[in-house]
């Protein structure tokens, strides 16, 4: 069982002892079986470690060393008072989770309240497992249920499958356009002891359906938890999902998230991930384009400081001809922060006319900051257009002097240049209304950087 004693203990506590009864869907034989198989797999695999190519730059066992986690409890006191609104207009629905567990009193407009149109089911996963398990049977076993799951990459999926406790379930019938954004809010860091939670989200859009999901991860308290989230996406023919993810966990948290899914013909998935929080985060996106004209646009920005570590790993598999993928990830790193970008575009034999583009650019604001960028193309078709690029560098000294010669002080000039650099990625977002809240967060981050600089200067005088 190797290198994960605290998590293994947690597995024992939750699955072998009386703890199992506390997990949602405890009475469902198919689920119990899945949990048990997944737990065995995780024990056999252990945590992903740096000897695995895909984990070369992110040392998870080291980050988890000497850390211990309790299962999350549903009674942690919480409120939304400290949570700023994302935009001026209210979301159509908001599901709020505290330490990964759904809180009805903080949420609103779940199914039945009247604001969601017919053909849309939106509910917490634990509630679905308790009240209508038929809704999920056969839908939670992708990847983790297959027999040849010995791939060590699947360890975190197995851990999630063993312990999944709650999450968001969104099922949209064919042809239904959800007329507003759905917010998924995760509040963490509140309890006295660090907790582990395993969110499992499921988004299924029928043919021609469309939705916008905004996922907000907020550290509202200082306690450092461990999240191991899995999001599964199923986009039917011509379906369209816009998925914004704002990760603002507290600086002691460990945030692991895997999004996997498949797109049918003509489906479109547009994602933007803003990574600001956590001591260590890894956001992995693993998608397959199964039908012609399917398209993904993955974009993101990361702003890290102190000793934060942020890992973005994407894998896009083009299975059929005429599919498109574009990725632009940009970041700014200060102090001793470290970012990892690993992007793989895999074009299978026969997937002609694939259009795949990947770009990763990082600004290093300190000489101790580091980025490890590894864009990869793996192409088995001969008529494709694929390109990738990566850059890392300091702020352009000429631009900085130009701004200062116009009266902007060093701090303001730097902030303006960094904001402009990141805005290029944010402006790729097709929903203009969602750009401003992202830019506002970038500005807040820069403001904080400026205050730190000022304090240091004053302290040195």
């Amino acid at each position, binding site marked *: 069982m190797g290198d994960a004693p605290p998590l293994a203990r947690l597995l024992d506590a939750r699955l072998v002892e009386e703890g199992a009864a506390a997990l949602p869907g405890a009475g469902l034989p198919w689920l119990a079986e899945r949990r048990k198989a997944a737990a065995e797999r995780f024990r056999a695999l252990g945590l992903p470690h740096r000897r695995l190519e895909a984990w070369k730059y992110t040392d998870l066992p080291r980050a988890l060393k000497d850390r211990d986690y309790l299962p999350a409890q549903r009674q942690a006191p919480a409120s939304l008072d400290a949570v700023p609104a994302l935009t001026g207009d209210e979301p159509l629905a908001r599901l709020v989770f505290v330490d990964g567990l759904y809180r009805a009193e903080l949420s609103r407009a779940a199914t039945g309240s009247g604001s969601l149109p017919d053909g849309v089911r939106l509910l917490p996963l634990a509630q679905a497992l308790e009240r209508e398990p038929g809704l999920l049977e056969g839908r939670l076993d992708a990847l983790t249920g297959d027999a040849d799951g010995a791939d060590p990459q699947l360890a975190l999926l197995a851990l999630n499958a063993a312990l999944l406790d709650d999450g968001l379930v969104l099922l949209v019938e064919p042809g239904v356009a959800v007329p507003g954004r759905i917010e998924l809010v995760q509040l963490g860091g509140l309890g006295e002891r660090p907790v582990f939670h395993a969110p499992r989200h499921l988004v299924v859009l029928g043919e021609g359906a469309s939705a916008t999901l905004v996922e907000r991860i907020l550290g509202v308290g200082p306690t450092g938890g461990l999240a191991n989230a899995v999001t599964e996406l199923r986009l039917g023919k011509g379906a369209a999902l816009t998925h914004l993810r704002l990760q603002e966990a507290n600086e002691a948290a460990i945030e692991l998230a895997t999004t996997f899914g498949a797109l049918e013909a003509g489906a479109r998935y547009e994602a933007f991930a803003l990574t600001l929080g956590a001591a260590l985060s890894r956001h992995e996106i693993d998608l397959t384009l199964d039908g012609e004209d399917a398209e993904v646009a993955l974009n993101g920005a990361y702003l890290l400081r102190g000793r934060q570590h942020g890992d973005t790993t994407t894998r896009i598999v083009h299975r059929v001809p005429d599919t498109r993928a574009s990725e632009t990830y940009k970041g700014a790193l200060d102090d001793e922060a470290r970012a990892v970008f690993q992007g793989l575009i895999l074009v299978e034999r026969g997937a002609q006319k694939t259009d795949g583009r990947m770009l990763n650019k990082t600004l290093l604001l300190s000489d101790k900051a580091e980025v490890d960028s590894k864009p990869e193309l793996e192409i088995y078709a001969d008529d494709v257009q694929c390109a990738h690029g990566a850059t890392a560098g300091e702020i352009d000294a000429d631009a900085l002097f130009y701004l*200062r010669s116009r*009266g*902007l*002080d*060093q701090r303001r000039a730097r902030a303006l240049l960094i904001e*402009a650099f990141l805005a290029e990625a944010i402006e790729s977002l097709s929903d203009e209304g969602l750009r401003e809240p992202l830019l506002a967060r970038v500005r807040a981050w820069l403001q904080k950087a400026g205050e730190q600089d000022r304090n240091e200067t004053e302290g040195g005088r």
Partner: protein
Amino acid sequence: MSDSMLKIQNLHASVEGKPILRGIDLEIAAGEVHAIMGPNGSGKSTLSYVLSGREGYEITEGSVTYKGKDLLALEPEERAGEGLFLAFQYPVEIPGVPNTTFLREAVNAVREYRGEERYDALKFMKVLRARLKELGMSDEFLKRAVNVGFSGGEKKRNEVLQMACLEPSLALLDETDSGLDIDALKAVADGVNALRSPDRSFLLITHYQRLLGYIVPDKVHVLARGRIVESGGPELAEKLEAGGYAGYLDETEAA
């Protein structure tokens, strides 16, 4: 002589240990337009960068007094706040920053430095439109990112627009005429002429006499090998145009 705007005394400056400026003396009075002409490598651009405070230049000797202050002790943004403006030979492209935002940030930074109130976005647009009108410029490139995709002429006109917005006391124009066709050159010169006033001075740095046909200077100086080797009136520029710089160079340089 009327009030002194800029007084450069025995200025020596090096780049990476190599002396470039070797004892410059120059005084510009308020309201005067001076031109510095010189061959490539004579130190023209170094002088403009030293005066505007760019990093990488070491002042080894001498002093620069600007409106009674020690200019060399100020940061670049402080110099801008004090009313010094450099029109760049190669204006810098800044992707992602709209030109309007850039102009507003600059104007407000300078206003703050001078103890004046910041303009809000609305008030600023009013001021900006007034400046555009005075300069006979259209507002179509305000929305574009700073200098990105601008033609050579547009970049130089954007410098003039910035100058008009920042209302400097002393404007340094570094090879503002380079790379411009005749129409762009005239437009830039008209912009500069419109800004001439009794309390504003200009220092034009140029290789060619061409610009001085449109902006007539009060004084012309010849810079060679890091020193001002000759000074005179506008007629000196014409002499240079006819005879070139050969007479000012070392035999080795002229060869």
